């Protein structure tokens, strides 16, 4: 009964204080595809993404009913940093959806104008924020006269809403509110924001400085939690990012047992249990997280941290991919002996049989579309063959030649035209380095393995469009005893969601014994009945392993494997993410045998050139 009454009370209060026009609300997700080009056209950074903004706390003057209901404490305001532009996930300010929609476009354009100035929004103080927003609004209205009418409409609607709060304000706050309203009506006309206690009611037509981050402790904890439940929670319902901070809660006394182990009666006694937390459901945690302004990350007590990790190097057998067969013995080049050592490496083919079918990730769709368009032009097309003995049409030129050049044979010769499907005899094998080094961060957002995965997916999309045969493999190694050779897509298989799922599931691990992987790839490619055979290697650094493969041994073996591939009639080419690749790659692949990429977005321009160079279409 208490709960029932409480619920009714809550609903009643919420309805009373809610000022949103839900029936006319506009979602960011529905407009994001239009907002991105709009932002770029207005002069915003091409690489910036548009994301949802989390509500922020504002200390505004609230009515008593709002105080009782606990509402109007947090508002979604827009802001931007180097990485992204954050806009409210929903705008339901006005009763007309056109006006709400306009607010999105207005804020995006304003952000683009802010970008063009040299002002650092994050560093700007509140007063500068007031001036900058006015200046940007005024510039925008001057350069885009088509926005003026809608801006006036929105401002009128906004002012009528803001008028309702003026009754609760003290004189200083009222003066400040008047200044804001005047600045909205006529941007650029107010030079100073009067001081007053508390925050003004958020101006949702303006951009705010990025939220201040608390001084945070860098985590040196590399044991991230890969739990599936955590991953599920990671998908936010609002598609926005939470502010987070790390705290240093490491206890210096942890980890030291100052009692005799014999006195340890049971394992359970020693486990730190937080019963409250254990009993709460995942959904509760998610909703609590939604309400938090800042999520604090602890260095301690990760989920599963109480488990002891027994195997630091090899995954447990049941979690590993499916090994195929007993392995293949391959030779290796010993540079000191200057000869191949036969049967030295054991290569083990693996198949990720549990990988779930996957779609192309969202962030690659546009690049993939561009690539597909470019590569579809390479698709073998039907061509007219002239001067044929038989054919569908008469070749007039050939016939005239017969008539005009009497010295030639009197009998009609090849005077027909025929159409044939012109096929390119081409097979391409992609070999990706999946060693542990690919787990390192390339930049704030990406690991090397992410770029390798994206590269493989984009290559696959492009090659599917060109109609050429291709296969994709990955490799890593643990000494010469186990060169792990992952089958991602073979030549016989079609590029389907299953193959894509296997590519999406690639994980970094172990070392880089690249010579054996190249030799195996060479053997596979040699079996293909095509004129041209491409071996594309995608790597992030030098060959290495924990035995003598480090250093010159690995380099020499790789070079030898590449020479063998060339002798077998293959064209090896390396795409690397290693910025220092210029040091050793020319030695391995030759001056024109490699390309260095640092950004997957460069692939659309790089790939066609690379592919054309290799296939010799333009030669």
């Amino acid at each position, binding site marked *: 009964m208490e709960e029932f009454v409480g619920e009714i009370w809550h609903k009643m209060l919420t309805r009373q204080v809610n000022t949103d026009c839900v029936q006319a609300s506009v979602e960011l997700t529905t407009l994001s*595809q*239009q*907002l*991105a*080009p*709009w932002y*770029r*056209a*207005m*002069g915003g950074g*091409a690489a910036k993404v548009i994301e949802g903004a989390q509500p922020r706390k504002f200390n505004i003057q609230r009515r008593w009913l709002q105080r009782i209901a606990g509402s109007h404490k947090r508002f979604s305001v827009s802001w931007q940093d180097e990485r992204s532009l954050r806009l409210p996930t929903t705008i339901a300010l006005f009763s007309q959806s056109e006006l709400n929609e306009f607010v999105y*476009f207005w804020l995006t*354009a304003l952000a683009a104008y802010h970008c063009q100035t040299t002002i650092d929004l994050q560093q700007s103080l509140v007063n500068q924020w007031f001036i900058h927003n006015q200046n940007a609004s005024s510039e925008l209205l001057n*350069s*885009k*006269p*088509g*926005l003026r009418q809608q801006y006036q409409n929105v401002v009128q609607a906004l002012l009528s809403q803001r008028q309702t709060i003026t009754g609760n304000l003290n004189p200083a706050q009222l003066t400040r509110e008047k200044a804001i309203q005047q600045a909205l009506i006529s941007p650029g006309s107010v030079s100073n924001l009067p001081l007053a206690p508390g925050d003004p009611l958020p101006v949702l037509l303006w951009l705010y400085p990025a939220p201040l981050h608390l001084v945070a402790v860098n985590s040196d904890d590399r044991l991230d939690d890969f739990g599936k439940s955590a991953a599920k929670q990671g998908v936010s319902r609002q598609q926005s990012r939470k502010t987070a901070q790390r705290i240093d809660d490491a206890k210096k006394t942890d980890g030291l047992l100052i009692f005799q182990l014999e006195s340890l009666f049971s394992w359970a006694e020693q486990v730190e249990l937080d019963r409250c937390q254990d009993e709460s459901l995942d959904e509760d945690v998610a909703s609590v997280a939604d309400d938090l302004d800042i999520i604090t990350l602890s260095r301690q007590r990760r989920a599963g941290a109480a488990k002891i990790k027994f195997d630091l190097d090899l995954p447990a057998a049941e979690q590993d991919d499916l090994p195929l067969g007993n392995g293949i013995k391959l030779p290796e080049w010993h540079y000191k002996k200057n000869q191949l050592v036969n049967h030295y490496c054991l290569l083990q083919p693996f198949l990720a049989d549990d990988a779930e079918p996957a779609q192309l990730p969202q962030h690659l769709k546009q690049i993939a579309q*561009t690539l597909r*368009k*470019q590569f579809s*032009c*390479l698709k073998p097309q039907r061509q*007219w063959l002239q001067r044929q003995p038989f054919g569908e049409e008469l070749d007039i*030129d050939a016939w*005239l*030649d017969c*008539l*005009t*050049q009497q010295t030639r044979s009197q009998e009609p010769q090849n005077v027909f035209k025929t159409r044939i499907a012109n096929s390119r005899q081409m097979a391409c094998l992609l070999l990706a380095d999946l060693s542990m080094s690919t787990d390192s961060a390339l930049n704030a957002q990406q690991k090397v393995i992410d770029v390798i995965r994206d590269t493989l997916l984009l290559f696959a999309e492009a090659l599917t469009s060109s109609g050429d045969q291709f296969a994709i493999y990955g490799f890593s190694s643990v000494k010469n005893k186990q060169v792990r050779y992952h089958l991602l897509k073979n030549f016989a298989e079609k590029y389907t969601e299953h193959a894509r799922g296997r590519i999406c599931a690639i994980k970094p691990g172990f070392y880089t014994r690249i010579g054996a992987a190249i030799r195996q790839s060479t053997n596979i490619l040699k079996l293909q009945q095509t004129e041209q055979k491409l071996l594309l290697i995608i790597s992030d650094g030098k060959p290495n392993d924990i035995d003598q493969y480090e250093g010159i041994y690995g380099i020499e073996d790789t070079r030898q494997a590449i020479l063998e591939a060339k002798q077998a009639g293959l064209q090896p080419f390396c795409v690397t993410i290693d910025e220092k690749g210029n040091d050793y790659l020319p030695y391995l692949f030759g001056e024109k045998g490699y390309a260095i990429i640092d950004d997957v977005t460069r692939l659309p321009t790089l790939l*066609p*050139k690379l592919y*054309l160079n290799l296939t010799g*279409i*333009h*030669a």
Partner: protein
Amino acid sequence: MTQHCHYLSQDREVEIFEHAANNNLPVMIKGPTGCGKTRFVEYMAQKLNRAIYTIACHDDLTATDLVGRHLIGAQGTFWQDGPLTRAVREGGICYLDEVVEARKDTTVVLHPLADHRRILPIERTGEVLNAHPDFMLVISYNPGYQNMLKGLKPSTRQRFVGLTFDYPEPQHEVVIICQESGIDKSLATQLVSLAQALRRLTDHDLEEAASTRLLIYTALMIKSGLEIKQACYACLAQPLTDDSQTQQAIERLIDASF
């Protein structure tokens, strides 16, 4: 060519072209679609007082189409010169527009004409023509997206004096649009500002940028009485993309600009 051809020089391209012409050197012009390559060649032909033979290259263009072929007439078969042979015999500028669209074997016939020999061997008649002193070979292509897959052979490229064109500077583009369409300067300025916004979308949302030619089309439509926004929708939004979301963003940009 009776009508006077307008051309507004951007850099020193006119001077370079004249020097190339005086030294009997062929010229290669690179640049995006609709930036004024063809107009430039027409202007130079007029300035140098030479005839111009324009050939729009395409996939099926053969060497025969350039050089000539035997035809059947009332008196039997006879030889008909192609545009290239005519230009070589009589003098004039032979302009191969979008040369990379032509088949690779076609462009090889240009080699002996483009170097110091300046000859055109005609295999079918057994002739070897020495080029007329006024003969000049000019080729153009767009090295952007469309032709990246069909780049020009290095051996062909290295026979030409190269000029790279781009869309004109905004103030020049305004003058060009006013001159070509007759609209007033303020409207032309707004159109150019819109085009610059659209050009920022190139390589991300659009395959190719809004060209000067499209701006001139838009201006002509406006001049002939079509409402400004409608002209922009039809001449800019529609030709630039088929993607409905991008098109809506462009339409919104047009709405914001006028």
